[in-house]
C-alpha cells in the first residue's frame, strides 16, 4: 500500500527542486541539500559499467555553493532556459528515516534564438532525509541517457 501522503511530500520536494533550476533561483539550489551531501551528474554509459567518471561531482554542500558562485561570477555560457519534467516516481525506506527515491527526467533547453531541443533525459537516483521538519537531499545522482552533451553543461540538472 503506497503511503499517499508521503508520496505527495516527495512530489512536492521534486517540484521545488526543479523550480529552483527552471527559474534561475540557483542560490536556493544548494539549500535543497543537507550539509554532508552528494551531488553528481554521470552518463549512464559509465554508471552501467560501474565506472566513476562524472560530469559534475560534489561531495559537500560547500562544493554546490562553489558551483553557483563560479556560474554567477566566472564562467561564460549562453543564457540557458531549462524546463525539467519528471515522471515515474518510486521510493522505498532506508535506515534511520532516509528514503531512496527514483524518477525519470527530461530537460528541454531553449536557446537565445528560441529553439527548444531535448537537452537531456535520464534517471534521478536520490536519497532524501527529513531534517528540521523539512525533507532535503542527502544524495542526488542524475544518470543521463543523452550521452553527448550539446556544447556545454553549465546549469545543474
Amino acid at each position: 500500500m503506497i503511503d499517499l501522503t508521503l508520496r505527495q511530500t516527495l512530489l512536492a520536494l521534486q517540484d521545488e527542486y526543479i523550480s529552483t533550476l527552471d527559474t534561475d533561483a540557483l542560490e536556493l539550489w544548494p539549500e535543497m541539500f543537507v550539509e554532508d551531501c552528494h551531488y553528481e551528474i554521470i552518463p549512464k554509459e559509465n554508471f552501467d559499467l560501474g565506472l566513476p567518471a562524472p560530469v559534475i561531482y560534489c561531495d559537500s554542500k560547500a562544493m554546490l555553493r562553489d558551483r553557483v558562485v563560479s556560474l554567477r561570477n566566472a564562467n561564460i555560457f549562453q543564457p540557458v532556459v531549462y524546463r525539467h519534467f519528471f515522471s515515474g516516481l518510486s521510493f522505498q525506506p532506508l535506515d534511520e528515516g532516509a528514503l531512496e527515491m527514483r524518477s525519470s527526467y527530461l530537460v528541454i533547453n531553449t536557446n537565445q534564438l528560441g529553439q527548444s531541443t531535448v537537452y537531456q533525459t535520464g534517471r534521478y537516483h536520490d536519497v532524501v532525509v527529513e531534517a528540521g521538519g523539512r525533507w532535503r537531499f542527502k544524495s542526488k545522482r542524475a544518470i543521463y541517457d543523452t550521452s553527448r552533451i550539446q556544447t556545454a553543461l553549465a546549469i545543474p540538472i
Partner: protein
Amino acid sequence: MTVATGELASPPVPEAPIADGSRVPYAVFHSQAIYDREQERIFRGEAWSFLGLEAEIKQTGDFKSTFIGDTPVVMTRTQDGRLAAWVNRCAHRGAMVCRQLRGNASSHACVYHQWRYDLEGNLFGVPFLRGLNGQAGMPADFDRASNGLRKLRVESYAGLVFATFSETVEPLADYIGPVMGGYLNRIFHKPVEYLGCTRQFSNSNWKLYLENVKDPYHASLLHLFHTTFNIFRVGMKAHCVTDGRHGMHSIIMAIKEAQTETSAAYKDQKIRSFDSGFTLEDESILALVPEYEVMATNHIQPIFPQLVVQQIHNTLVARQLLPKGPNAFELVFHFFGYEDDTPEMRKLRIKQANLVGPAGYISMEDTEATELVQQGVVRDGRATSVIDMAKDAPEQSDTLITEKLIRSFWAGYKRLMGFDDSDPFGAALQ
C-alpha cells in the same frame, strides 16, 4: 573570381593558409569539399588516429566501437593478446557489423545475413555458402580470405592505441617523434586504469578545437575561473613546443615554480587577489599532489589528428576529437588514473573532473568559443584569421602569450592537404 571594385571590395587575401600559418581563410571551417579532402588526405592518409586506451580492452575479445575521421571502426584485442582494428562495415552488403559501443565477443557477426568474422576481421562464416539441397550457394571461386573486413594497421604507444589506413606512413613511434614521445612518457610512465568517458558535441569545425588546444593565449582570458579564483598566472613558466618535425603535434605546459609549492604560497596568492572577493569554500578541487618530476598545473598535448592528452592538476584525460561533418565535432573524454592509485588519489582525480569536460570550470567555454567562430565565419570563406601573437620571436618557447603552435599546425595542414601556392585549394574549391 572577379570582385567588384569600389568601397565595399575586400582587400586581397591569401587563398590558402599562407606558408607561415599566420593567415587562414575561413573556408577551411565550413567547406564540404575541404572536409571531404581531409577525410582522404588526413584521416585515411599519412596519419595515425587515436582510437582509445589499451586499458579499455584488457581481455581477449574486449572491443570498442569508435571512428577514424567519420569512418566507423572497431578496436579489439585478439586471442594472442595483440590489438586489431577494422572498418565496421560488412564485406557483403555494407552493413555495420558491430552495433554495440563496447563489450566482449569471440567473433563478430553482421545481423543482416550473419556473415561472421574473427577478431582480426577475417571472414569465416557465410550462411548457405554451398547452398542447400541442390540450390546454389556462392560461386565456387568465392574466396573467404579476400572478403574479410577492411583491416587497419594498429600500434600502441605507452598504452595509447592508434590505427591508420595508410600502408606507407612511418611507424607510430616515429610519427609521434622523440620530443612528443618524451612528454607522453611523462604521463604514461606506469599502467593506467580507465575510469569512464564523457562526451560533448559542438556545432563547430574540428580544427577550431585543435586551434584551441594549441592556444595558451586564451587560457586566462576566456576561462575567467582562472583569474576569478586566481589560479592561472600570466607569468607562469611554460613550455610551448611542437614535435619539431611536421609541426602538427604540440604541447603546452604551465609549470608551478618551486617556491609556490607550499600552501603558504597559495594563501599569499589569495591575499593578493583578495579584492576580487571570491574564494572557493572547498579548495581541494585545486589541490596539486606531486606525481611527476615537473610540477605542471596544465599539460595539454595534441597528437594530430585525433588525440589530446591532458593533465590538469591531478585529473588525467585522453580526449578523442572526432569530426562529424564540416560544422560539428564530438569530443570523447577518456578519464584515467594509475593502477596503483591510493583511494584518496583516485577520489581526488574524480573530484577534479569538475575542472574539465562539458561542465568543467576551466573548459566549458571552449566549445562556446569555437561555435562563435563557426557562426562568425559562415559566409566569408576567403577572409582570414590573424594569428600573429609572438610571431617576431619564433625562438621563444617559454611563454604562454603566443600563437606559434597554431601557426605551426596550419603550415603542416597546408602541406598535408596539398594546398601549394600554384594550387591554393586544389580541386577542393572547384
